[in-house]
């Protein structure tokens, strides 16, 4: 291992600007002559739209007004399908669906206009629960309210379940919707010019998603659409697909107004209208031998996609692939369905379907352990995948994994055995209301796009040498708080053999950077980071080939490098290294059979939660949390630990605090007042450790962003089960819900 920047906790690149308040987010920007946009939305979940009336007392002639007939192109949000309109034209399919857009030079007047618009609606029956959707009395999508169904199987599940020598354990597990609740609300500023086209700046994760949506809407050549990411105050998936809608809305308003238009959502609008984590329900039927060996798993995984298809098939597929976990099992059958309801579309959120299915499986394993009288950690250890074995969808593990070491480390750090015994002794002897418990979850998370996704994306990243001898990173990957800028600079500096100060990372701007794919799926460091390493190597090679740089991959004297670049640029217009994604050799995914190599690599983890439960109030306090993971080589330990800590806190919120209350398809608690995320006094200390890479010190890095979302909820509920003997099966588990579980367990 060379002495480089990768592996060191260099400070965050934009850290100084962030701590001094200098960083400009979208609402901090202003353009000359800028107007302010607002969105008129549906107050009901489902209705026929009979008409739109502009009320009295508003100077409508001063407004730019855009309805479905005023769009420059198809009335479609360009995603996987084309079912979602940018503006509802005749049928409204979910609460808060956009219907009309207004812009005015004055923010307050724009608001007045919005309040004065009346929608004439004829109510239609809505589907406001998974059960209603599955029953199919009211059909809101296709023929049967099913957006997508995947099935995969190996072995003979039915025969294994019928084997008289196994115990069959069955259970149903549910998870609720979750709001991303990034602290910066969503927003965009758009400009339109008949000659130059469309320019949009805003808070977003995926510049080229927005770009594609605008190209399709404006029917312009790609170079006439420009998307620039502004500093983004958190995303967590919430700024993956929805910004395309806001950008399109702002852009059509700008076109109509003849002025730049800023469209910023207020918090309530953001919570009500933008996407949330898919609610889920998983049915497990498992055949297990008395010694704990898993024999067969029959899994039925359902997610609520909301009113339009959006990204639900991809969320579904990731959830399905993770639904059997990092365990060996000969017979596995998975049926997975994304269901249509009249809820606002659910979408990307850190983990992307995996937290839901991992929750179900890990909960189910604790139920099995209790049934068999086994230690939950021992049950897991017995079934953990070994190198050369296959996952549920038939992916052979080629990496020399040692998941038992990950589990052992988590158990050691959390003093699992001592505390388990101590808690049990305490619980037996106490006559007070407090009970203590400790729970574990072991899991994996596939990094990068599922299946052939990365091949289809064919991402490109570039590194450009400047005349002053510095390098500029050209990638569409966005910094949204997770550390992209810093990690990229570290990777490129090492590949170039230059000091960190010689590397610059530009703000993603589609006019400047190539399409290196979206900033999602824990792919930035692993996929795009690798591209940048290759691009940098190729740039070095160019200089070597020109005889300007000596051979070798080690450090370069910056002055030598600067001179080499200067000489090269004397004869050439520019000096760039470029790399395009190439799948690792031997990777193949069969989408139709839903089998094969689902991900190029997996991160592996074992998390332990130590809790106190108050039997009378049914409150759960997480006293200690240990998160151990193997993620390949860690590029920046401090930033990486920050990702894990933040993800664990979000998952604690999902498990114990955060409940999206839908009433008649409408979010009943769309404020930070009543949708409550944990505060500093509600969040426990979180202990994070990264294992030495299975592939050694020079191992490639794996994605980590989503991983910490998967384990905490099941670990916490397992600890509650250990503490109380009751078996909670659903989250969010607020005290009022746990109280019922405890009561049922008593009776």
């Amino acid at each position: 291992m060379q002495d480089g920047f990768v592996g060191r906790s260099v400070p965050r690149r934009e850290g100084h600007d962030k701590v001094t308040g200098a960083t400009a987010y979208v609402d901090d920007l202003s353009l000359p002559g800028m107007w302010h946009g607002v969105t008129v939305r549906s107050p009901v979940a489902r209705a026929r739209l009979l008409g739109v009336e502009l009320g009295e007392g508003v100077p409508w002639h001063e407004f730019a007004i855009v309805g479905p007939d005023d769009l420059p192109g198809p009335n479609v949000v360009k995603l996987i399908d084309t079912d979602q309109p940018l503006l509802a034209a005749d049928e409204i399919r979910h609460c808060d669906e956009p219907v009309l857009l207004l812009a005015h030079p004055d923010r307050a007047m724009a608001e007045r206009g919005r309040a004065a618009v009346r929608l004439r609606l004829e109510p239609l029956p809505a589907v406001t629960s998974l059960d209603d959707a599955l029953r199919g009395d009211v059909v809101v999508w296709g023929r049967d309210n099913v957006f997508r169904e995947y099935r995969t199987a190996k072995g003979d599940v039915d025969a294994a379940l019928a084997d008289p020598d196994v115990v069959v354990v069955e259970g149903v597990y549910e998870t609720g919707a979750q709001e991303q609740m990034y602290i910066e609300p969503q927003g965009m500023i758009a400009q339109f010019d008949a000659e130059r086209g469309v320019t949009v700046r805003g808070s977003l994760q995926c510049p080229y998603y927005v770009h594609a949506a605008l190209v399709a809407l404006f029917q312009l050549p790609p170079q006439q659409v420009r998307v620039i990411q502004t500093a983004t105050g958190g995303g967590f998936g919430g700024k993956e697909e929805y910004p395309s809608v806001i950008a399109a809305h702002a852009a059509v308003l700008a076109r109509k107004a003849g002025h730049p238009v800023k469209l910023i959502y207020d918090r309530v609008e953001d919570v009500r209208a933008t996407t949330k984590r898919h609610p889920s329900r998983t049915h497990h039927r498992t055949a297990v031998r008395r010694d704990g060996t898993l024999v067969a798993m029959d899994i039925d995984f359902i997610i609520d996609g909301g009113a339009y298809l959006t990204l639900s098939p991809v969320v579904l597929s990731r959830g399905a692939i993770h639904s059997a976990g990092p365990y060996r099992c000969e017979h596995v059958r998975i049926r997975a369905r994304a269901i249509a309801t009249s809820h606002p579309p659910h979408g990307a959120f850190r983990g992307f379907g995996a937290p839901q299915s991992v929750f179900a499986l890990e909960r189910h394993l604790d139920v099995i352990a209790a049934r068999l009288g086994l230690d939950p950690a021992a049950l897991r250890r017995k079934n953990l995948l070994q190198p050369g074995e296959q996952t549920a969808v038939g992916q052979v593990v080629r990496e020399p994994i040692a998941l038992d070491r990950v589990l052992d480390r988590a158990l050691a750090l959390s003093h699992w055995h001592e505390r388990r015994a101590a808690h049990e002794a305490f619980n037996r002897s106490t006559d007070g209301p407090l009970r203590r418990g400790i729970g574990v979850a072991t899991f994996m998370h596939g990094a990068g796009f599922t299946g052939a996704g990365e091949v289809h994306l064919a991402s490109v990243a570039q590194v450009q040498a400047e005349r002053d001898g510095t390098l500029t990173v050209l990638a569409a990957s966005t910094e949204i708080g997770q550390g992209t800028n810093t990690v990229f600079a570290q990777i490129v500096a090492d590949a170039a053999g230059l000091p960190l100060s010689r590397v610059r990372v530009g703000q993603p701007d589609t006019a400047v950077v190539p399409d290196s794919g979206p900033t999602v799926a824990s792919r930035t460091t692993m996929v795009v980071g690798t591209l940048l390493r290759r691009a940098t190597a190729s740039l070095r090679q160019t200089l070597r080939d020109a005889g300007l740089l000596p051979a070798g991959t080690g450090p370069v004297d910056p002055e030598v490098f600067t001179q080499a670049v200067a000489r090269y640029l004397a004869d050439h217009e520019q000096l760039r290294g470029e790399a395009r994604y190439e799948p690792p050799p031997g990777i193949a995914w069969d989408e139709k059979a839903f089998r094969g190599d689902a991900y190029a690599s997996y991160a592996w983890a074992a998390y332990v939660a130590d809790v106190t439960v108050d039997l009378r109030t049914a409150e759960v306090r997480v006293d200690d949390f240990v998160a151990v993971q193997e993620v390949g080589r860690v590029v920046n330990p401090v930033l990486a630990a920050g990702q894990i800590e933040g993800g664990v806190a979000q998952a604690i919120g999902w498990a114990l605090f955060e409940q999206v209350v839908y009433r008649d398809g409408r979010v009943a608690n769309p404020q930070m007042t009543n949708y409550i995320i944990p505060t500093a006094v509600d969040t426990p200390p979180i202990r994070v450790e990264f294992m030495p890479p299975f592939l050694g010190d020079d191992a490639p890095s794996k994605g980590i962003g989503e991983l910490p979302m998967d384990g905490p909820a099941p670990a916490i509920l397992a600890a509650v089960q250990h503490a109380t003997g009751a078996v909670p099966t659903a989250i969010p588990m607020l005290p009022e819900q746990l109280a019922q579980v405890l009561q049922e367990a008593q009776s």
Partner: protein
Amino acid sequence: MTAPVRLLQCTVNGRATAVAVAPHRTLLEVLRYQLDLIGSKQGCDKGDCGACTVQVDGVPKLACLTLAVAVEGREVTTVEGLGERAGGCHPLQDAFDRHDAAQCGFCTPGILMAADALLRRVQRPVTPDEVRAALAGNLCRCTGYTKIIDAVVDASRRLSQP
């Protein structure tokens, strides 16, 4: 109904400031959109998130729930002023940078102003629990608070050294 604007005179980040404001403008609106002090953020509009926290006469308050006219004659300090007061970068800001306590950075200005008020009030090294209590009105969605607490504790130690 629009009431006539009036002249608001106060001190902002150590400078005497006079600005014409409508009576229904919040301090946050005036700071951000009239004085171009964009460091203070708007996250929720109604006191739930703390991203707009500024100090009024040294006390951390929510700018989104403070009428601008209510700071007449008072001293307002924003995150921009925190650094200026220390000649560029305040030790607390430096600690946030070193500990990676700012991920997306959107809650950071508000948290810094609440944390600074704590450190100036107690004038000694603080405990993690004291930091948690002092920051219990500021939401962060990125960090799980761990590194924020580390940074404030670290800064308090450095600031307490003679």
